[in-house]
């Protein structure tokens, strides 16, 4: 076989390997280092370098350097004339004798001469400069042939595309990072808005100050105890924060009445779930169930709630969570006409109304969370912060919780309603 054919086969092998290397999802730096090895090895070149062009800095930054010494410049500043010449030349090798006319070359001429550089290849892809290849003398000490320059061009195209793709990926990653930051900001703004709304709702009712915020936090605890994911927990908290948003339209004197309100006033107050739904429905929430929680947080499993008298399965799950959180807060805070109830009584009430007013699995999860905190298994102090230490550590509460949970454990999440003989539409 003629030597020319041998060279051709060897170069084709290198080209094929280069193609494979570039399409593999390897580390970019390694891909470029391998590429330089492949060019050098394909033709037998003693030394060389591959640089990437930094568009904003107008610099050629070395990505891989072989045999050029430690003092070879790792960053070369280009002038606009250099860039113009690169684009005019396109991706084809320039002999060093010609490249010396380029402004950037003149700056580093001594350094390049010392390393016996022979070829310079601007990497131009789709009319954009993406980098450059510097090549030293061949091991044969012969000048580069036309055929070798063509091989270098072909390999340079592969390397140029690899750099271009990398630039594109970096740009996409930068955009994705911007979007992520923007999303986080929007999410934070959304949460701040929700909390501001909750504060506005609570302002209207001087006797239940902080109620919406606490319902949000109790709802969050229930969702956490159910093992929900981060987004779902946030959704439950938001549903709790906004459950009473409809009260914004109810007259302040009804909300703040220091007496048991009459039927007319009660009818007015009972509109707030529906009004809340109407307020929240047009808003595009990240958590879709938020308006439903507002609308159905006064429904009961036995169908005796309002506004629609829904039964068990008809009630959205998120509303069941908020119902429990809402009632728990009502029982554990002082009202103008009623002092807060002792913790043990509240536990009794929750057990008694489990399956009637509240979903049993939620009551169990909630009480289990409380017990874990009291036993020191959960150190977040979530309940203590909301209810106060003295209230939470009332005598006998731990035993009460254990006893209640033992009693409730055999029950299934399904309702007691059928057993109680109360018509349950959801079962049919």
């Amino acid at each position: 076989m003629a030597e020319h054919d041998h060279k051709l086969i060897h170069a084709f092998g290198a080209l094929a390997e280069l193609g494979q290397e570039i399409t593999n999802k390897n580390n970019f730096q390694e891909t470029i280092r391998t590429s330089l090895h492949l060019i050098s090895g394909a033709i037998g070149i003693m030394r060389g370098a591959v640089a990437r062009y930094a568009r904003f800095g107008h610099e050629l930054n070395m990505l891989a350097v072989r045999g050029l010494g430690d003092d070879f410049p790792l960053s070369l500043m280009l002038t606009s004339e250099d860039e113009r010449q690169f684009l005019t030349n396109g991706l084809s090798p320039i002999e060093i004798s010609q490249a010396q006319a380029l402004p950037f070359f003149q700056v580093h001429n001594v350094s390049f001469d010392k390393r016996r550089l022979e070829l310079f290849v601007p990497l131009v892809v789709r009319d954009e400069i993406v980098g450059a290849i510097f090549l030293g003398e061949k091991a044969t000490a012969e000048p580069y042939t036309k055929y070798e320059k063509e091989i270098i061009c072909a390999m340079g195209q592969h390397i140029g595309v690899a750099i271009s793709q990398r630039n594109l990926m970096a740009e996409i990653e930068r955009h994705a990072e911007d979007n992520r930051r923007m999303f986080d900001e929007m999410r934070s703004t959304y949460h701040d808005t929700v909390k501001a709304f909750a504060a506005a709702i609570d302002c209207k009712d001087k006797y239940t100050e902080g109620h919406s915020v606490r319902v949000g936090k109790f709802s969050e605890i229930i969702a956490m105890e159910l093992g929900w994911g981060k987004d779902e927990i946030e959704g439950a908290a938001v549903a709790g924060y906004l459950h009473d948003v409809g009260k914004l339209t109810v007259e302040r004197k009804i909300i703040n009445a220091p007496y048991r309100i009459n039927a007319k006033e009660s009818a007015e107050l009972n509109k707030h779930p529906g009004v809340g739904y109407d307020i929240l429905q047009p808003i595009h929430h990240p958590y879709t169930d938020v308006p439903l929680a507002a609308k159905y947080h006064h429904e009961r499993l036995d169908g005796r709630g309002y506004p629609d008298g829904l039964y068990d399965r008809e009630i959205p799950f998120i509303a069941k969570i908020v119902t429990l959180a809402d009632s728990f807060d009502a029982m554990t805070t002082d009202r103008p006409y009623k002092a807060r109830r002792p913790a043990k009584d509240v536990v009794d009430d929750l057990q008694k109304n489990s399956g009637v007013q509240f979903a049993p699995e939620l009551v169990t999860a909630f009480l289990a969370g409380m017990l874990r905190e009291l036993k020191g298994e959960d150190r977040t102090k979530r309940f203590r912060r909301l209810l106060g230490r003295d209230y939470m550590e009332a005598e006998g509460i731990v035993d009460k919780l254990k006893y209640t949970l033992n009693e409730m454990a055999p029950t299934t999440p399904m309702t007691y309603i059928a057993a109680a003989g109360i018509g349950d539409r959801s079962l049919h």
Partner: protein
Amino acid sequence: MITHSEPVTSAQPVTEKSVIRAGDYLNKLSGEQIEYECKRQLEAGCKELVVNFAETELVNSIGISILLGIIDAASSNGATVVFSDVNETTVELFEMLGLSKHVTIADSAPQLTKIWQNMIIS
């Protein structure tokens, strides 16, 4: 004294004559470990470096580039390089790409010994 170095990154004792086994590592980027070991030997004073190709069936472009790096480093350190136990196809490749202009190619261990004896005489 002649040392035989494995193509691994662990440090090998440095002497004036060292043998590095190319193995089949030379065809991958990990072959740079051989180059690193050769350079370490050269920088520490090795003057006669033998790269043994007994276990190397084929040398690809990455391998050629690594060997060129070794040749360049040896030249900078005033050391000589011998390629031993190189098969016929690889010898042709080295000749075609100009590597044989920079190294002595020894067919086998006896010939290598002879080369070294000549080096000592001269």
